């Protein structure tokens, strides 16, 4: 059994470490590229959202590398993601690929089904072993997300931001060659140290931008045309409202006892949107408000073309922008890989934020004088 799973930011690092600890063979899909997108768009329904197209590309590239089993999480939120596993299975079957799907659907009163999926993926009935693997996986994803977060802040501070790019580039290259959670964790530690040692600018204040929107497009750098990198090069600290580790902590723990970050977002969003609209629509509105309250300079919403929940959020955000006096930019991503128009918007947004900050400072000086 050779296991693979679709790309979604750092998730593959944890998945790989966890399964390798359990003695499974993992075939990673190559990093998302134009080729992935090309394969995906060729075999997917034309009007489906972008993440499915990338998933299909990932699967086929992995199958070409020898994978025969695909792991995927399910969902029951009213968003097309709920159909992903079914549609994807169908597409691959029609193309004549003979692969096994193991889907982790939310239990919905039948925890035994989910448990069986776990057992099948782990290749063992030993609950302690599974639990241990899971624990390690969670640790890796947290560390990996922290590394990304560190690099997103350091890039803004660095005298030469390319240095941070190079270190991260090496990290993603080397991760394919290390195996098991211990080796992975030590590579993450090593990379963190390297990033911390990058020389910084002599500047004490930095602008901050929060990224909100659809989870997949926020997390997967290929899909959002590496927005963190681009903003970092403009000297802006970037914080993402959704990460795999935040998702995990909500769904596998804190969410159930009501103190997760998601709950805070729901509460913040309540005056504007009091109910679930599918996906992370409600969280998008809530996160934007929380960022405004935390004095961020601006918020950027990213969504794949025709994503229903985010369209609902998009139409609410102008009101949030007005009520909280925080600039919000919405970016729609699709199959286009041309970056010129995208850069223009980001650049103009950064200009706007800079001007606002200057004005604020001048205003404060006037008040004081």
């Amino acid at each position: 059994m050779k296991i693979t799973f679709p790309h979604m930011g750092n998730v593959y690092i944890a998945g790989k470490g966890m399964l390798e600890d359990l003695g499974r063979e993992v075939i990673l899909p190559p990093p998302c590229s134009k080729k992935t997108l090309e394969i995906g768009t060729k075999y997917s329904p034309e009007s489906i959202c972008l993440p499915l197209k990338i998933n299909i590309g990932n699967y086929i590239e992995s199958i070409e590398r020898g994978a025969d089993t695909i792991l995927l999480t399910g969902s029951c939120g009213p968003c097309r993601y709920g159909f992903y596993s079914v549609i994807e299975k169908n597409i691959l079957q029609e193309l004549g690929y003979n692969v096994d799907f193991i889907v982790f659907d939310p239990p919905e009163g039948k925890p035994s089904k989910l448990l069986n999926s776990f057992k099948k993926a782990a290749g063992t009935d030993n609950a302690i072993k599974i639990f241990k693997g899971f624990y390690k996986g969670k640790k890796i994803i947290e560390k990996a997300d922290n590394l990304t977060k560190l690099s997103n802040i350091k890039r803004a501070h660095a005298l030469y931001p390319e240095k941070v790019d190079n270190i991260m580039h090496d990290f993603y290259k080397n991760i394919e060659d290390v195996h098991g959670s211990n080796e992975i964790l030590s590579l993450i530690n090593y990379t963190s140290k390297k990033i911390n040692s990058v020389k910084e600018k002599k500047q004490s204040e930095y602008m901050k931008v929060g990224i909100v929107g659809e989870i997949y497009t926020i997390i997967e750098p290929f899909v959002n045309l590496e927005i963190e990198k681009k903003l970092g090069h403009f000297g802006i600290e970037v914080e993402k409202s959704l990460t795999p580790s935040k998702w995990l902590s909500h769904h596998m723990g804190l969410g159930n006892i009501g103190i997760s970050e998601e709950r805070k977002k729901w509460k913040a969003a309540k005056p504007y949107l009091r109910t679930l609209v599918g996906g992370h629509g409600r969280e998008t509105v809530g996160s934007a408000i929380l960022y405004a309250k935390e004095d961020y300079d601006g918020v950027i919403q990213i969504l794949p073309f025709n994503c229903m929940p985010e369209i609902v959020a998009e139409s609410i955000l102008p009101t949030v922008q007005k009520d909280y006096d925080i600039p919000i930019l919405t970016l729609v991503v699709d199959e286009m890989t041309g970056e010129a128009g995208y850069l223009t918007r980001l650049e103009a947004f950064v200009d706007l934020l800079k001007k606002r900050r200057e004005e604020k400072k001048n205003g404060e000086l006037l008040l004081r004088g």
Partner: protein
Amino acid sequence: MENYYLGVDVGSVSTNLVVIDENNEVVIKKYLRTQGKPIKVLQKGLNEIKQKSGNLKIKGVGTTGSGRQLASVILGSDIVKNEITTHAVAAIQFKKDVKTVLEIGGQDSKIITLKDSIVTDFAMNTVCAAGTGSFLDRQASRLGIDIKDFGNYALNSKNPVRIAGRCAVFAESDMIHKQQLGHNQEDIIRGLCEALVRNYLNNIGKGKDIKPPIVFQGGVAANVGIKKAFENALQTEIYIPKHHDVMGAIGSAILSKEEVKKKGRSKFKGFNITDLNYKVRGIDCNDCANMCEIIEIVADKKTIARWGDKCGKWTNALKGEDQELA
């Protein structure tokens, strides 16, 4: 001798060059079709300016538009700015208390809202180019009339036909359908103008605070039919600057003036760059699955710039040498 500043806007459809004086007045203006050959057109435009003006003392250069990077490398510009900022700067110069800028160009349309001469919000068309200049151009040629007369036709209509504006492709088939039914040309053209404005306001202007005074600029502002449709829809007067078609270039010239005043000197390479022989080489990098198409600009056998790589390998390789990349 007076000081002058050059602003260049390399867009998808047109390449605009303007020369302004210290008072931001336009002295020379060139509006050329890009026709997919930005470098040639840039050289041609510069040459024309040189011949017209003798040897103006250009103290600063600014570039903007989707080809701003390219223009900057060739000219040696002091400032490279996105179209949104430059359009706002030029609009403020035209009307100090402007609150809304509507801009419709060849492939892009944007809206910019301002407060006290500061940009507060903006939007640009994303995945759809319905209702931009290229679309109108196409429909004009389909109807067999000159794009210059397009607007006037619309003004003569008394009974506009409703045309679906949601998508350029649907608008086109809807328009053909209405033609086949026998509606006259004026009414169809006015319907098209109204559809375009409706689409613009619903799409780009959605959720934006459109407050007067409103300035309308970009190539499409020459179209009186569209202007009228905007006035009808927004129920207020729309101001169109005299140099509405080159506002981006004007804005970048103004910004270059400010930049040079700060820095003290200009990076402008001089008029003789029109004699150099530029070549653009495409390199297909096959080192990873992204297969980036790298563009290399060569001036007389010397590589002066590269871009197009995702990882930065090609771009950074040049940085070590005496290259400057904007």
